């Protein structure tokens, strides 16, 4: 759901950029104060960049890929990890690969980095003690992606690029399916695998079950 340049007028894109910068600044503060797992972070970033290129086909001639903010948040024990990691990935994608626009970088960071990571992580935290880590990470990643897609639809409606109702309908529908086949499944798979084979790689906070 990388928004390209031209889909949001500059006057509105500036506002999303300012809001995104506030979140990025706080994620840097988090990294300075509470973050220690440098190799885990860099390895996750490489994997998330790679998996974002793997579009999975869904019905209606469409496709979608995992975005990874919720995975980073769960494994590093903080939604700020998702913000920090997705910021780096989205900047590289926009500058080097023409994937997502430059003027709308703030909006893309806000949607896939901030909204997805926060919604998904806190759903995971709320559910993991009750339904287990696999189901909680699946639902968290799924709803994180869907919420980010709906936020994108609202921004594009304000921009006059999508009509509000149909935009919400199609963005919501496509990403509900993408969230099931890509984001939810892959997040649950990686989280359960890492917790099983390598829990010592994770910060203590990410190993809590309730």
């Amino acid at each position: 759901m990388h928004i390209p340049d031209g889909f949001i007028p500059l006057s509105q894109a500036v506002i999303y950029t300012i809001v995104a910068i506030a979140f990025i600044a706080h994620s840097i503060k988090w990294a300075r104060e509470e973050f220690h797992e440098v190799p885990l972070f860099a390895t996750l970033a490489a994997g998330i960049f790679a998996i974002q290129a793997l579009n999975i086909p869904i019905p209606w001639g469409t496709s979608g890929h995992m975005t990874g903010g919720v995975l980073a948040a769960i494994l590093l024990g903080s939604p700020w990890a998702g913000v920090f990691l997705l910021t780096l990935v989205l900047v590289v994608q926009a500058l080097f690969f023409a994937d997502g626009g430059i003027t709308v970088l703030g909006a893309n960071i806000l949607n896939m980095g901030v909204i997805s990571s926060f919604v998904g992580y806190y759903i995971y935290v709320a559910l993991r003690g009750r339904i287990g880590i696999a189901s909680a990470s699946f639902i968290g990643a799924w709803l994180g992606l869907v919420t980010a897609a709906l936020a994108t639809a609202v921004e594009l409606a304000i921009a006059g690029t999508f009509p509000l109702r149909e935009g919400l309908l199609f963005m919501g529908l496509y990403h509900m399916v993408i969230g099931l086949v890509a984001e939810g499944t892959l997040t649950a798979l990686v989280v359960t695998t890492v917790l099983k084979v390598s829990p010592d790689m994770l910060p203590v906070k990410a190993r809590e079950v309730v």
Partner: protein
Amino acid sequence: MLQERRYLIALGIAFLIAVLAPFLASPNPDGLESTAEKFESAQDKELELVSSPFPDYTIPGIEGSASEVAAMLIGTALIFILSFGAAKALTKAG
């Protein structure tokens, strides 16, 4: 198993996905592009403001799949180095 070895395995998986993605990825438009196709108001709006060195995950001048695989390898290595450097600098500063 040593943590270093496990990180190497995980990084190997990341690079494996990067190499395979050009062959396995669906060429269908993504959710946002498919939505945009439905609305008159979204047509001809997309702009190319800057020229990227690797547009659409290809290296200009190289033909075929090799171009996409090379672009993915460069991108994955770049992200790893950049995020390692940024994370290291910040944790050291803290």
